[in-house]
């Protein structure tokens, strides 16, 4: 093994197990599990809410905590999915299919246990992948010029639209809208104020937290408030016997292995992350199973696979962010926001300029995964109690958290207007089937894309073919075009309809 890799890991280990960071890791994973369990609030809104607080902490501890929230939520979401048939976290949707059925047959315990074990295996392996892949990727990234970055971001945005639900044309239009929201404010190049309409608070842009909190947080809560709280049927009557049987373990073995690979790969893709990974895993397990008819009725492979995949994807989605400075999903975009608050510019140079942050964060993921698998199962009882709190108590509480979190950023009432406006916009998007994720990614990448486009054109003296003449850049551009063409093919269009219809 490469000596410098070992010494880096040792550095990371020392950082990750320092008492302060252990504490923040624990807070992060517990908080993550909590919001993962609770429907109506997810890691996106929570991380957005905690961003201002990270300003008072040191960068390493902040990122460790925020990361813990993210992958912790993947663990927590499965608990609600299995016990209550409600996905606590969007990516746990698939777990409700077979997990809840297992609970109905008195097999909630093994379902929870396999879910935790699979999550742990997936998470650990994926972290290993991060360790191994990050340095060479960062090396390559150092050779990136503005043309490469622009093409990479284009590829990322287009890939995100593919993996989104529904109409690609609408998704691309959402990306564009997001990019346009993103450039509101002062144009760095010329100093001109764009689209601020004489509102002084907009001179620095619209504000990432109110946008995210509004679209994702408020929208979700309000959706849940539309229906009466029918009381949730939670399976806690029998004492939960958590031990999986030997047949369970045998049946889960290969699904977990497959899902680890699948999840790790999908997490890397822009727009990837837990949901796509868990879906893909379910589909694959159903296809390769010797008893496909059992799926939907309590097949343990239908729990083992998706749960492993979503955790693996959550971990590997850190790779593009840490090495290239490009967010592969919304949560990563927020992590970048957290780094920028601390004055750290994300990108390949972070690995060499702040190795303690880089390696400490990576090792903390192992620590976090370990904490989660140890704590989750004994704490199930507590989570269950929590789930039984009626929504009329929870909803106002969550709304207050979101409000105070957003307001505390700037103490400016204007941000609350933005919050409300994007809250309404989020509801509109759901009703009209306009994908929010492409827009959110666009908002984050907007200024960056414009900047890189400008510089690339400047360097090439106005020659637009530069994106295709430089090898790495042309690679990304061609990949983008290929993706678009693939999507347009009628055969693929039908397949996509099928995949997405199955889950409705």
């Amino acid at each position, binding site marked *: 093994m490469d000596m410098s890799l070992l010494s880096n890991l040792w550095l990371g280990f020392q950082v990750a197990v320092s008492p302060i960071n252990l504490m923040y890791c624990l807070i992060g994973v517990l908080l993550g599990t909590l919001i993962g369990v609770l429907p109506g609030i997810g890691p996106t809104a929570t991380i957005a809410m905690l961003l201002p607080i990270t300003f008072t902490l040191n960068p390493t501890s902040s990122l460790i905590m925020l990361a813990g929230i993210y992958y912790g939520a993947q663990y927590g979401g499965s608990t609600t999915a299995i016990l209550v048939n409600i996905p606590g976290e969007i990516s746990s949707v698939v777990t409700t299919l077979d997990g809840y059925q297992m609970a109905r047959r008195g097999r909630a315990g093994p379902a929870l246990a396999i879910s935790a074990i699979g999550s742990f295996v997936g998470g650990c392996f994926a972290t290993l992948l991060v360790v191994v892949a990050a340095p060479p990727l960062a090396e390559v990234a150092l050779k990136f010029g503005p043309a490469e970055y622009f093409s990479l971001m284009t590829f990322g945005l287009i890939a995100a639209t593919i993996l989104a639900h529904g109409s690609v044309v609408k998704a691309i239009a959402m990306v564009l*809208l997001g*990019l*346009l929201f993103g*450039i509101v404010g002062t144009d760095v190049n010329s100093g001109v104020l*764009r689209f601020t309409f004489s509102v002084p608070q907009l001179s620095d842009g619209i504000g990432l937290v109110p946008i995210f909190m509004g679209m994702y947080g408020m929208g979700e809560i*309000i959706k849940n408030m539309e229906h009466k709280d029918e009381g949730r049927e939670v399976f806690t009557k029998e004492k939960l016997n958590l031990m999986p049987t030997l047949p369970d373990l045998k049946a889960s073995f290969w699904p977990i292995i497959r899902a680890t690979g699948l999840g790790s790969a999908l997490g890397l893709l822009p727009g990837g992350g837990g949901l796509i990974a868990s879906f893909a895993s379910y589909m694959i397990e159903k296809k390769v199973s010797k008893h496909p008819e059992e799926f939907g009725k309590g097949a343990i492979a239908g729990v083992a696979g998706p749960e492993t995949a979503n955790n693996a994807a959550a971990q590997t989605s850190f790779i593009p962010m840490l090495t290239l400075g490009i967010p592969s999903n919304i949560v990563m975009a927020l992590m970048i926001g957290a780094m920028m608050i601390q004055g750290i510019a994300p990108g390949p140079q972070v690995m060499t300029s702040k190795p303690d942050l880089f390696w400490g964060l990576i090792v903390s993921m192992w620590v976090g995964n370990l904490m989660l698998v140890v704590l989750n199962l004994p704490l199930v009882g507590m989570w269950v109690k929590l789930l039984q709190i009626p929504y009329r108590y929870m909803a106002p509480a969550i709304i207050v958290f979101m409000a105070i979190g957003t307001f505390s950023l700037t103490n400016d009432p204007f941000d609350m207007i933005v919050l409300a406006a994007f809250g*309404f916009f989020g509801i509109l998007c759901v009703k009209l089937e306009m994908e929010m994720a492409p827009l959110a990614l666009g908002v984050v990448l907007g200024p960056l894309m414009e900047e890189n486009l400008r510089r690339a054109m400047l360097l090439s003296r106005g020659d637009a073919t530069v994106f295709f003449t430089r090898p790495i850049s042309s690679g990304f551009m061609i990949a983008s075009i290929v993706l678009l063409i693939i999507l347009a093919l009628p055969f693929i269009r039908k397949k996509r309809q099928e995949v997405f219809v199955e889950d409705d």
Partner: protein
Amino acid sequence: MRIKSPKDFWSGLIFIVAGGFISGYAATHYQMGSALRMGPGYFPVWLGALQLVLGLIVFSRSFVLKGEGISKFHWRPISLTLGACVVYGFIMKPAGLIIATIILTFLSALGGPDYRHKDAVYVSLAMVFFSVTVFVWGLKLPFPLWPEAFQ
């Protein structure tokens, strides 16, 4: 011409209006510059125009491809919850955190389908307690606790 897909109809319309407005506004208010030296208007004009085109595609599609109807807008939770947040922001300074939190909690509770007076009172007290301990004493965020008039 019958609208076959209301969702596409309205979303298409949104894209057309947004794209058109942004592109037009940018073209008339900001310098375009050239491809070599892009002015502030360059990016928005082109992106807005592209969005307008995509919007037209979606809009016209709505007359051809069938789509589901739009689900109901529940205006009570929407207006009360979002309105509560805006009110919270504006009364924080004059009325202080405690009053602002109570109003916010009550309005949010009213927005839900299972409103009960007693529960709303309990939750608002709990929220005040939580906000004060965690955000003001714990994190030392600069919120005024009491109304301006009593400072």
